[in-house]
């Protein structure tokens, strides 16, 4: 992936972090008497006022079910819901709104592809190729599919720095490969995968590619047409939107050929007991009443990120990553896990003699929220022979002072347990 994705674009203005922090009401609080330092953004990010207000407005002003009523509120809700789809389409630079399917999140988006695409295109003896840094949600759906079809899951393993071995990726991309499914950015290590290269290699063999973009969309500009990916999955809640909502982007040609995966209302044109005609894209994959306010909130999050500017966000977070990488060196016994040349917003580490859970508890008492554990990426932990790491992950509202607070907390943890 080009450097421009994680480094500030030429001439990009600096992010005004004080002003941006004011956009997030939750940040102005203390935890255990200390100012909150929220560094668990890879698990979920906080929400700006504009997103909170958008959801509130739905329920206070114009809420009704979508795509059904002829009454005013239903039409307003439908307009706002479909308006969010247009926002997402532009955000991803998708060719058509028909390519944007709302789901419950990245996990559901991937399962949708595994079921609706995978079952029709992966057979006995075929292979699905993933990388060694995948989140469980980009492993288990493929295992289920492979078990059902008698297919094989192949894994391109990680080099010591946490980057995918591309020579292995190339070798594993074989005549039986029916689909490649890889993360854009690793949640556990922060590695940015060279997805453009991976897609080119796969396409050269006629293999479609799904990108798990859950950890990418809040940090770098994604252009699905420039990437030429076939599917792109992500969640709203990691990009400052509400939880319980996500997106599956799919190329129209592929989506059109896929059977529905959940049956119900909204995904049909007509139903009789003899025959049902399915609705057109994207509704065919949106059975049942969706998370209306959540989707509209996601639209507000897209607006927010776009107004701040992803180049500016990437520049700011790159600065935090560089500063944090440097400062963590001061903590005795600390070892970073994941040191790939291209990284985004994640510092995962272990400290000799200290267990991540104990570190997490001490940090909590310093007001610092981090994630400790295997980050739903147990194969990654296995790769490094560790049960868990402590992970600090950044968002656009984090500051260098907060990294200083993290380092102070870590030094306290070392003093307590050493």
């Amino acid at each position, binding site marked *: 992936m080009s450097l421009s994705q994680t480094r500030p674009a030429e001439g990009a203005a600096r992010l005004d972090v004080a002003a941006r922090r004011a956009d997030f009401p939750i940040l102005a609080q203390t935890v*255990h008497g200390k100012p909150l330092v929220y560094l668990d953004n*890879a*698990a*979920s990010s906080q929400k700006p006022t504009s997103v909170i207000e958008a959801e509130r407005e739905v329920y206070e002003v114009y809420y009704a079910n979508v795509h059904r009523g002829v009454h005013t509120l239903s039409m307003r809700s439908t307009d706002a819901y479909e308006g969010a789809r247009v926002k997402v389409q532009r955000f991803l630079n998708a060719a058509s709104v028909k390519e944007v399917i709302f789901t419950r999140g990245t996990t559901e988006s991937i399962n949708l592809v595994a079921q609706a695409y995978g079952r029709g295109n992966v057979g006995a003896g075929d292979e699905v190729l993933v990388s060694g840094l995948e*989140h469980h*949600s980009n492993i288990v759906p493929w295992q289920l599919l492979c078990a059902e079809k008698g297919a094989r899951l192949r894994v391109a393993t990680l080099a010591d720095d946490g980057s995918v071995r591309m020579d292995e990726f190339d070798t594993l991309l074989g005549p039986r490969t029916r689909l490649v499914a890889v993360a854009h950015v690793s*949640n556990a290590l922060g590695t940015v995968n060279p997805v453009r290269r991976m897609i080119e290699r796969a396409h050269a063999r006629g293999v479609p590619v799904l990108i798990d973009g*859950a950890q990418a969309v809040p940090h770098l500009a994604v252009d699905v047409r420039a990437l030429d990916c076939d599917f792109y999955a992500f969640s709203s809640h*990691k990009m400052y939107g509400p939880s319980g909502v996500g997106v599956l982007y799919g190329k129209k040609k592929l989506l059109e050929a896929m059977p529905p995966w959940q049956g119900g209302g909204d995904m049909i044109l007509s139903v009789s007991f003899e025959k049902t005609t399915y609705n057109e894209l994207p509704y065919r994959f949106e059975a049942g009443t969706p998370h209306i306010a959540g989707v509209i909130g996601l639209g507000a999050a897209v607006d927010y990120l776009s107004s701040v500017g992803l180049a500016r966000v990437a520049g700011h977070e790159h600065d935090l990553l560089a500063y944090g990488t440097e400062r963590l060196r001061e903590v005795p016994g600390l070892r970073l896990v994941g040191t790939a040349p291209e990284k985004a917003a994640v510092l995962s580490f272990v400290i000799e003699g200290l*267990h*991540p*859970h*104990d570190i997490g*508890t*001490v940090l909590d*008492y310093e007001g610092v929220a981090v*994630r*400790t*554990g*295997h*980050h*739903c990426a*147990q194969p990654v*932990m296995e790769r490094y022979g560790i*049960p*868990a790491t402590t992970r600090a992950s950044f968002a656009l509202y984090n500051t260098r002072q907060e990294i200083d607070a993290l380092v102070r907390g870590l030094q306290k943890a070392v003093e*307590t*347990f050493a």
Partner: protein
Amino acid sequence: MSDLRELYQELILDHTKKPRNFGELPGANRRAEGYNPLCGDRATVFVRLEGDRVADVRFQGAGCSISTASASMMTESIKGKTRAEVEKLFDRFHRLITCDPTRVAANVAPELGKLAVFSGVCEFPVRVKCASLAWHTLKAALAGEDKPVSTEVSESSSGDGGGQAR
């Protein structure tokens, strides 16, 4: 930090740094493995039962301060006890660490002895699993179960539940 000291008492830190009865137990006739999928902690408990009595016990595994100290102090407190006595002690201990309203105030539950230092865990619900992992594993070992126990499926009614996020 005062609350934090409640959790990480000196005795707990001592057992963390120097776990007692650590390692494999030659001649063990019971063993079980425990796993906490939320943090990846693993514990193996080895028991030599003589009749109904725990003649010897040791543990192995990688865990946090709370789980290591809990396992270490558990081995000290159950040696020589009958299965029924161990059951009863675990029940007391579990009520202590889960803030069970029926728990006996730690300092007036003499059978808990030194285990009372874990009373602070009760204020940290997410750490209950850490403190109970070795005990659940011990229980499985005494029951002669071969399958690994997990903090997420065993004794779910005892309030160890929790969730995970990406």
